[in-house]
């Protein structure tokens, strides 16, 4: 999809979430949904399969997210999948998150962890990263078992990587 279309979809999602008054929740849920879409090949295959009717794909979305995400988030993802734009979901959501962060004058910080972080850890991590980078951050935590252990934080072009996976890679290279 063209950059202009991605921009248009993200703006539409942003305005709907803002109109509904739950932008922080929606952008967080959509962010996690987008990361799950990227990492789960089966989910990606199902939602982008044009041979499956659109209403059936939307049903899959509602079944997966129903009860786990806000109604607005479910409806927005269902809208994108129904429009046949599921392939561009991560790009649209990333643009939405950037827009929402800009609105709050913050920068997106993506943190990947092998296990979920507690609220306290998330808060302290956000403070630590903000202190380290000198920027106000909109922290997004992605549970990614492939990192094995530790964390990797990406703030703009800056990457702070202290994962077990990377250490193992370095050790493999040395071996």
């Amino acid at each position, binding site marked *: 999809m063209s950059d202009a279309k991605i921009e248009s979809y993200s703006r539409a999602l942003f305005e709907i979430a803002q109109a509904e008054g739950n932008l922080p929740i929606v952008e967080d849920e959509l962010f996690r949904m987008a990361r799950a879409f990227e990492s789960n090949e089966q989910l990606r295959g199902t939602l982008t399969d044009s041979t499956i009717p659109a209403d059936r794909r939307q049903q899959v979305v509602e079944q997966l997210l129903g009860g786990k995400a806000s109604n607005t988030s479910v409806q927005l993802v269902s809208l994108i999948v129904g429009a046949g734009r599921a392939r561009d979901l991560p790009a649209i959501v990333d643009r939405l998150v950037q827009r929402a962060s800009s609105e709050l004058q913050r920068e997106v910080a993506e943190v990947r962890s092998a296990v979920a972080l507690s609220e306290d850890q998330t808060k302290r991590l956000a403070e630590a990263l903000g202190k*380290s980078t000198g920027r106000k951050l909109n922290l997004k935590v992605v549970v990614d078992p492939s990192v094995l252990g530790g964390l990797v934080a990406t703030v703009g072009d800056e990457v702070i990587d202290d994962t*077990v996976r990377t250490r193992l890679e370095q050790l493999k290279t040395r071996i």
Partner: protein
Amino acid sequence: MNLMFEVLFAEGDPSQTHHWLLPETAEIIYGGIASVIIFSALYKFAWPMIVKSMNARTEKIQKELDGAAAARTKSESDAAGIRRALGDIEAERKKILAEAETQAAAILADGRARLVKEVAELEAKAEADLAAARGRSGEELRGEIARLSSAAMSASIAASLNDRAQQDLIEGFIKSVGASK
């Protein structure tokens, strides 16, 4: 002599010849005078023409002789030229054969040298291939050892990463990032 006097001074019948063989005297005189006149006229008028004709014929014959001599000379010259040319052809043939032999020898020598060089190159390449294969085998072995080691290491680390270890890693990250400013 007597006969002549008898003829000239014969007497008798003038209608009869005085001799059965000789004509009448007057006839001899007239005939003689006519003959002298004719021969004189011939000498005066015909002789120069005859002489001229003879000279012309002589000259023509001489010319023909000269032409024949020139033709002979030319033929001899041509023959000499042909003989010389034959000699040249023979020399040229010998020269071409000699050059061909020289070239053949050079090509042979060049071919031998190239063959020797190619054999040397092939030998060198074979040796290099062998060395590379030995190196590759070593590399593959080292790679396999590294792969197995890292796989074992990954499995060992993954097994040791319990919840406690995960939390320690997370806390360590937060502390190190917070202290990095």
